[in-house]
């Protein structure tokens, strides 16, 4: 994914509390943080990073509405018009009978839609080959902070010092 390519400074932290407190300190000092990677969710980190809120909820709602309409249309068209059928003595178009499958369709469309959206927006999934890793220890016992150099006006030394001051064990340079 092109938006991740470039030069990065990568801070490695040992403790979730340290990284949580480092974030506001660094932001206050003027460092723009790209992302923090952690082996487990850290309460309050999203707000500390100031990331805009995810819009996947809106997407989910749209997928749900699409699924609901699609399945209702399918049922009404097949059962009522294309090949009218009387089942259980009901009218060919009897909405209560369609509710369970409409519900299922809504859930199915929402689930698939959200997974697809997630994969696309994160550049994952089949056919994608660019998987930048800032530090593999982010899946184990370290907390990794990525800082994109091109988005920061501060010099490498300044940022590196700020990272160290905020409790980083190591500062590495990563180029994608």
């Amino acid at each position, binding site marked *: 994914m092109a938006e991740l390519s470039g030069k990065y400074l990568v801070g490695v932290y040992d403790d979730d509390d340290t990284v949580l407190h480092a974030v506001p300190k660094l932001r206050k000092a003027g460092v723009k943080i790209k992302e923090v990677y952690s082996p487990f969710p850290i*309460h*309050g980190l999203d*707000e*500390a990073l100031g990331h805009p809120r995810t819009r996947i909820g809106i997407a989910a709602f749209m997928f749900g509405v699409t699924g609901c309409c699609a399945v209702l249309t399918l049922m009404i068209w097949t059962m009522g018009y294309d090949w009218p059928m009387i089942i*259980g*003595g*009901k009218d060919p178009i009897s909405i209560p*009978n369609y509710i369970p499958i409409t519900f299922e369709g809504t859930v199915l469309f929402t689930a698939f839609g959200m997974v697809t959206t997630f994969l696309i927006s994160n550049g994952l999934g089949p056919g994608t080959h660019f998987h930048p890793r800032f530090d593999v220890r982010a899946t184990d016992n370290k907390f990794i902070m990525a800082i994109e150099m091109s988005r920061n006006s501060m010099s490498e030394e300044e940022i590196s010092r700020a990272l160290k001051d905020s409790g980083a064990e190591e500062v590495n340079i990563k180029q994608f």
Partner: protein
Amino acid sequence: MASGHSIPSIEERFEFTSGAKRSLLIGGGVGLALVLLGAYLAANGGGGHEVAAHGAEHAAAAGHAAAEHGAAAAAHGADAHGAAAEGGHHAKSWVARIWANLWVNGVYFTGMSVVGMFFLSYNYLAQAGWSAVFKRVPEALPAFLPFTGAVLLITFLLGGHDLFHWTHKGLYEVGGAEYDKIIAGKQGYLNTPFFLGRLVIYFVVWYLMWKKLRNLSLQEDEIGGTEFYEKSIRLGTAFLVVFGVTSSTSAWDFVMSIDTHWFSTMFGWYTLASWHVAGLAVITLTIVLLRERGYLRAVNSSHLRDLGKFVFAFSIFWTYVWFAQFLLIYYANLPEETIYFIERFRGHGGFYKAPFFITLFLNFFFPFLILMTRDAKFTHSILKVACWSVIVGHWFDFYTNVMPGTVGAEASIGPLEWGFFLIFLCAFAYTIANQLTKANLIPRNHPMLEESLHHDIA
């Protein structure tokens, strides 16, 4: 969300101001005036003609149902005709309407009160931390149980004959004109002494278990330690076992037995779902109103969001159970089952069709849509609207369940109905507020309080 905020003081006492008391008393007074007006209109208004017309329609609808569904429904047709033939009842149908209204509200508010205890119990059983900070609110609800218990008992003793078809003696006399084989077969369960015994036992057990839990909570406030918490977990678990059975049986007794021939295996769950979501709406609404008056500042937006989710989720759960009951009956199309919905759709001049769909709208579509987004679940104004929608909506729910089998075609939604609802609401609010003054608003020695104060779902 809470991470950056300081925790407000946990020492606070709710003050039930004289102004608030006066408003609630005025509310109750307005309710009483509406009831008197409604009773006067119902007793003296030009109801006679209307009643006769409705009666004819009723008989016609019953006949129609019988013709349509063959032999099994014929019993119902005969039943309806039998009721119509007892002309004496029709002269004082407004009395039956009063009993039925007392019953609707009595059952509904009983449920909302006992759900306070239910909520506490499952929170104890799950050893939930987040709910500790506001647990005084659900804890206050069951204080209303003696009141609704008395209402139900008195209503049954004085008006039971008007409400419950199965109380008619003739139904059980083999060979008699009124003999009904189906109802006679249910006599082992549906008979007055057993019913009264159950009614009293429900209320005594629910109330005493709550009283015990409340005392443990108050002692914990003074003494501290984890001993009371451990005891509360055991008591809460015991209550869940008790309520697991009594919620279903009380639903059969209070509501399902009105339509004596009909039964549904979903009914216990359905009524519990109804009570539960209404009780959650009351808890949430009370917390929001307390916060607006400057109390419970320690309840943060994460708590509110979780409460909003509770109301949201259990509106859906109620709808799910409602629909599960409806769909099976609709699909299987057995006459003795469909009669229940036919009566609400087409019977009694189609009167119940409106409340039937209002119920669905207020309890599902409306709260579902407005509580869907994240921010809505902690926005006071939206929570208030959603909670009121659910509270009024489930009143309609019980109205639609109780009225067709009791007052049938003479039903109406007018000053009488709103008056009774208002009286019960004000009395309920008064009891809750009064109960809240009796202890520190935040359970200061609850072992989970610290966790609850830092509840953060980001």
